[in-house]
């Protein structure tokens, strides 16, 4: 920041140097991951892999391989989590945004908790309870844990999306004789759809990437992609874990690149109102 008042060439060099450092800090680890994903052989003290190839990709993607099964499990859990979360979050978000609600502050506080409190105690105890009632190691158990966390985000974003819909449009439709339900279905809901899609993507990603809850509740039968990646890393199999990590990176980075298309600033401004 100190370079601002320096003469132009010096400050241009400094700007470029700082940007280059930042680019290395951000892309260095990612580039390293790419190298590992395509490395056939790579050991100390070689700076680069001795041999590149796709052997490990064949191993990851072989039919009935662990990775494909885990990918399927992860996506299936994420889809169920999104459906479950939105089913309860959309009505809740609408009520928070548009209806008169008693104990509003307390309710908002409850919906803040899962994002504002360390989740570890929750996972530890829910795993114990689920174990007793036979939900440990089941898809349903993992979906419930993911949803209790993800639905909070969904409620906040859905509520913001509904709040950003212009009330006068709803009033116009009601004045023209639409029932509350018709008005919601034909005016409010379509206008809130971009925000709702954003919340669905958030919940999907959160579920896809979730580690700690699945680590406690999913064992031993539900192996999602993050758990598979973790096991490969801890087993020292960096190729497999890097390829798995790449699979997890694709949706994360893709969403980062398009997030503002879905989450417009008018919706963002209403979050938490």
């Amino acid at each position, binding site marked *: 920041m100190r370079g601002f008042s320096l003469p132009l060439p010096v400050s241009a060099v400094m700007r470029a140097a700082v940007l280059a450092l930042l680019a290395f800090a*951000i892309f260095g*680890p990612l580039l390293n*991951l790419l190298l590992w994903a395509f490395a056939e052989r790579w050991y100390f003290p070689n700076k680069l892999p001795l041999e590149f190839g796709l052997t490990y990709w064949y191993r990851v993607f072989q039919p009935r391989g662990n990775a494909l099964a885990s990918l399927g499990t992860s996506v299936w859990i994420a889809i169920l989590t999104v459906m479950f979360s939105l089913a*309860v979050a959309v009505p809740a978000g609408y009520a928070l945004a548009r209806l008169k609600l008693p104990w509003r502050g307390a309710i908002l506080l409850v919906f803040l*908790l899962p994002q504002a409190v360390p989740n*570890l105690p*929750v996972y530890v105890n829910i795993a114990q309870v689920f174990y007793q009632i036979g939900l440990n190691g089941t898809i349903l158990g993992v979906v419930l844990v993911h949803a209790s966390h993800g639905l909070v985000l969904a409620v906040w974003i859905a509520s913001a999306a509904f709040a950003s819909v212009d009330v006068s449009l709803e009033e116009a439709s009601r004045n023209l004789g639409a029932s509350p339900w018709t008005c919601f279905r034909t005016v409010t809901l379509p206008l809130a759809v971009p925000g709702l899609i954003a919340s669905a993507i958030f919940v999907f990603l959160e579920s896809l990437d979730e580690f700690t809850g699945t680590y406690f509740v999913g064992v031993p039968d539900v192996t999602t992609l993050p758990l598979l990646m973790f096991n490969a890393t801890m087993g020292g199999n960096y190729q497999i874990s890097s390829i798995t990590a790449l699979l997890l990176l694709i949706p994360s*980075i893709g969403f980062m690149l398009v997030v503002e298309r879905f989450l417009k600033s008018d919706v963002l401004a209403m979050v938490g109102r």
Partner: protein
Amino acid sequence: MADSAREVTLGLPPGRDDQPAAVNARSQFLRGHGVALALIAPALAVVGLFFVAPLGMSAVVAFRGKSGGFTLEHFAKAFDFYTTDLLFTLTIVLISTLLIGLVAIAIAGYLTLGGHPRTVAILRWLYRWPLFIPFVVAGQLMRTFLAKNGMLNHVLIGSGLIEPLSAQSLLDWRGIVVAFVWKQAPFVTLLLAGAMASVESQHIEAARNLGARRLRVLVDIVLPQVRGTLLVGLVLSFVTMLSVLSVPLMINPNSPTMMTVDVAYRISTHGDYPVANALCLLSLALAAIGAVFYLKHATARAEGG
């Protein structure tokens, strides 16, 4: 959080109140709010059952002795075994929070005040990449990047900054901090840059016209106006980092390590839920420090107008 039974009912009353049964003042109340409560009840029930109740259970289990009475022995044991890890955790999370704040202020500050449009554009494109990358992947990235024979050391040696023999593995507390900052700084930057963008540009221009340098404008004019947003982002990051299990497990699993690792170890190796829960409550207490810090700031600001 004092007893789990109460926690469960706390989560549920809206669901029960929906039944249009009672004919008294209560039903009057429900006529006005019934629809809203019915709409919100399922979401509340899910959070109540699968989040609030287990959280309350943690408090019960941590204080309950073998015979069922109240005891502090689990906490005694937790402190006995894990005081070092408690301090280790707090130090790591505090250092990370501080660094995240500094990085976020620097980047968001340049995005708001930077005088070179192309640099601003590149920076805006650049800083966000780790935004949605999960912690578990960040841990894996750093495990290979920061290792003794990892890319960082190769680049440092290649550029002549360090001798090959002095290359060392950063896979200890420093690795955890790097992974946390790498993953969490973009989030706080995003929040902060958004808040800074809504600072009245007249204030900034006025100060600039009076000859203030950009760094001055950032510290004296912009930062005070976005303090709240910065604090929210930092407190959220603080709490999040406290309960990340994957990063310390992957980067620094040996003692001293973070409390999340200890909790997982108590459960997977000893099935020791009471001490695990005592540790959980201690990390909750650390999170509460963050929350109190935030509330204190919020109330101070409210009182100050």
